[in-house]
């Protein structure tokens, strides 16, 4: 369980990093916190010839705050979000989500950009950033482009990033006034990857029914927006639905065939229903941004 040989590069700027990535694009990996990549390399499931370590690039740790939202440098660690050492434009949701990631040592090193690049839908950031409508900033020698997270995440370990592109930042729009959120993570132990992860946002639009968005992680290879569930909620605005009421629309959203499901699959669907329900129950109850 030792990595195969690789060449190590440590650029000091984004431009330098992009140049390196372009030059080495045939066999290169970007490393920041290394909390996912290093185990993969140790198990030799990844054997990149080159590693570009971006932990010495100051730009990647910068946060820019505007009236619309915040742009967090890609190397912002989970710990920074957890303790609100960066502003939380999602009214506490970013901090709440970060607190559930792995263990203290992992949060101290792991980064938001790394998590999105890894694209594991049972991790926190893909679902939370999808729910918040975040945008990924990607840099290459061809220049910068912006990719909505929902278009960025293509599948398990698969993203829209080109081989020579670097995530430089993630922009998160400020949560809309009158919006309340609820999040629930179902996992066997604190710190494990989620068996299910739901983010619910309820926005008071002034109309008789509030606008509800529901996102689910760990069900498919990318986070899912649960349109059928949202519709069921719109029909029952008092949030009196029980997990059993959610199973049907959830199965439709996930594409699960309840008739042929194995006990494991049936339990998985049940966990998702319970998770969505608990996220719904948590709306407005979590601590807000400091």
């Amino acid at each position, binding site marked *: 369980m030792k990595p195969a*040989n690789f060449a190590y590069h440590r650029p000091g700027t984004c431009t330098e990093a992009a140049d390196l990535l372009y030059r080495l694009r045939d066999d290169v990996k970007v490393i920041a916190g290394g909390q996912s990549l290093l185990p993969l390399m140790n*198990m030799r499931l990844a054997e990149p010839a080159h590693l570009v370590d971006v932990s010495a690039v100051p730009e990647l740790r910068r946060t820019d705050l505007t009236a619309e939202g915040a742009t967090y440098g890609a190397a912002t660690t989970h710990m920074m979000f957890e303790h609100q050492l960066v502003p939380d434009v999602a009214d506490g949701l970013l901090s709440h989500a970060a607190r559930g990631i792995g263990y203290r040592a992992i949060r101290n090193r792991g980064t938001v950009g790394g998590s999105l690049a890894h694209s594991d839908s049972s991790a926190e950031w893909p679902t939370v950033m999808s729910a918040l409508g975040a945008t990924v900033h990607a840099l290459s020698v061809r220049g910068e482009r912006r990719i909505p997270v929902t278009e960025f995440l293509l599948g398990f370990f698969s993203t829209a990033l080109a081989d020579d592109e670097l995530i430089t930042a993630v922009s998160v729009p400020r949560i809309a006034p009158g919006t309340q959120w609820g999040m629930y993570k179902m996992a066997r132990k*604190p710190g494990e990857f989620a068996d299910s992860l739901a983010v619910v946002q309820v926005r008071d639009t002034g109309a008789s029914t509030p606008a509800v968005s529901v996102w689910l992680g760990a069900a498919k290879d990318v986070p899912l927006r649960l349109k059928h569930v949202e519709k069921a909620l719109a029909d029952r605005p008092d949030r009196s639905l029980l*997990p059993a009421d959610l199973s049907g629309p959830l199965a439709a959203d996930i594409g699960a065939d309840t008739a042929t499901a194995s006990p494991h699959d049936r*339990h998985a669907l049940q966990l998702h229903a319970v998770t969505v329900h608990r996220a719904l129950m948590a709306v407005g109850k979590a601590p807000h941004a400091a």
Partner: protein
Amino acid sequence: MNAAGSNPARRNGIGARTPRREDARHLSGRGRFVADMKLPGLREVAFVRSQVPHGRIRGITVPADAEPGSVWTGTDLAPIAEPLTATSTLEGFRAAPLPHLAVEKVRYVGEPIAMVIASARAEAEDLAARIIVDIEPLPAAVDFTGALAQDAPLVHDDWPDNVYATTSGDIGDVDAVAHDAAVTVTREYTMNRQAVVPLETRGVMAQHDQTSGQLVVHSSTQTPHMIRDMIAILLGVEARQVRVIAPDMGGGFGTKCSVYPEEIALAAVAMRLPYPIRWVEDRWEAMVSSTQARDHHYRITAHAAADGTLLGVEADILVNAGAYSVHPWTATMDATMSAAMIPGPYRLSNYRFRTRSVATNKTPLGPYRGVARPGACLAIERTLDELAHALGIEPNEMRIRNMVRPEDMPYTSVAKKVYDSGDYPEAVRRVSALIGHDAWRKQQQDVSDGARHRIGIGYGSFTEQTAHGCIEWASRGLAITIGTEGARLEMDSSGGLTLSVGIKSHGQGAETTLAQVVSEVFDVDPALVTVVHGDTALTPRGDGTFASRSMVMAGGATYGAAQQLAGKVLRIGGVLLGEDPKKLRFKDGAVVGRTGSVTYRELAKEFLFTPDHVPGVEAGLEVSFYYRPDTQTGAFTYASHAAVVSVDLDTGAVSLLDYAVVEDCGTVVNPLIVDGQITGGIAQGIGTALLEELVYDPDGQPKSTSFLDYLLPGATEVPMIKIGHMQTPSPHTVFGVKGAGEGGAIAPPAAIANAVTDALRAFGAEANETPMTPVRIWTALQDAQASPVRGAAMTGTDR
């Protein structure tokens, strides 16, 4: 109830709350493990291991540019190391020679095929990756149903089936009592396979010392003397030519007390190399190639009278022992222990059992804390709760009614085990009080029907043979009948005491507790007694640390050596003080008489520097003592555990609300260490109950070989454990101590499964398979609701 039998007045000796002297070096990172060793020219080893569960080796191709001596296959090793064959004297036992590197066939994922040496581990892995092993895959025997089928693939080609051995017994008349029973229940239970996960993985370093001509092997092993013996035998050299050193260890829990192919392979190859070599097991290797544990299936039928009296028990026990029989424990170790422990702490006269130890294409099964008892305890304790429920008796009361009573001691169980001492029912009464049985029953009843959780209370009781002697091992068919320990105690010229023992403390704190034994005799601060262990060149022969035996056995040897040396020191003191030695005593590091005293420092200097000052006392200030208890049936530690759980009806998740244990390990040598052993054992038992499972797919591929999938208990999964102690000294051991290392791990699966079942009574769902994962519990609930007649038990489907 006293807190861990503590005697706060005691500074030294037995019963003192002496902080572990090992902790200072480990907490400050000054321990020295195999992976820390540095030797000039040291090269590192990686193994090529089978990626298929079962297959025939057609060829192994080594890269042409590999350095000579850098790659070793089974063919290379055959002439220099005999394969290991763990034989058994059990009738009909089939031995399965265990090659150090596979030849002809591979029989489990992780089996070593080739050994690769390079200057660094990463380079060894590079070379290993370039070795091409051509294997013709064969169908695998994986679970009980598959392995026992008529047309099952044969793990060992020359066997007629996949059974290592079948044992059986029929004591009393089960059929007659079945006829009279008020209630009869039959249940099936499954305890799935676990990894054994010490923080430090295994590691071996071997060097042929050109100066001494000696082969020096460092190994993270619980049994250094046994490893030395087996290296000598299998390599065809004399044992004097082999020295085995077990340095600091980060746990073992039983998985480091078998003789392993890697130890023999490194030793054999190092004999032929001019440089030392080392292999440090990585975590993947640890999950597939260290011996694994549990993997039992039970079918139990039990009969009881209307008043709850347990009349008879029938047990059909299956153990999935994996591909090979490990030395010295053999592939029937779990089955024979399990059959003997099913009767538990109960007065039972009618018992019929059959065990089958099954060979499969899984990693060999070996010892793990509790050895088979967690499975046996789950089976009998769950069954007892079902009987109690059917009869409308509270489970704690059911146990009290059936347990062996103090007046029955010593009690020969229906399985011919001799329970030596104790008050088993009292442990149940005390643990009921400690957990607050009545208060929890009230809380349980207060949960509303509409709530989405339920509360349950469960008990698990056991009695556990510890520190058994030769006859026990012989009765289980072992070729090596363990039962002797040696200790050597030396007083040096400065009056200091050095104790050397053949056991190997790998986390138990024996450097502290054995020093306490010496301090009990000599009345010195235990910190002033050096304890040497884990080096065959420096310690008297001993069998090692396992089976909760070290405090009893090495403690007995240490006490014997200390007593003899004390006698001599008193005689020297008598000469120096001019007093009758019989009237002298030890106090604060000195021999004290009526008129004067002499410190050990003065005394030793006088005796060793100027023996002419001490006429009439023969030379030498050291004693070797070998201890073998007169009674070899073991000292029985017993305990009752109580668990309170909350079960989430929506998810099937189980959380522990409370946990208590009342145990009796006889005289407590060090209350701090005993409490630590109990808590750690319970943590591992919670792992068995709720989290840990080595999942194999139908083809025999292990699917949970990293901590991503293999969940271990941590601080968030282990509640504060309430511990109560009883202290009934064993009549058979020095100081009356009983083993304390394993008990904690035995009862948690039983207590928690009973608590979960108690919580789900209204639904008719039962928890009969470990680990009790959310999916298993939730599915049992669904199935129970679908068939509400008796309720569907969560039985194993793996038959």
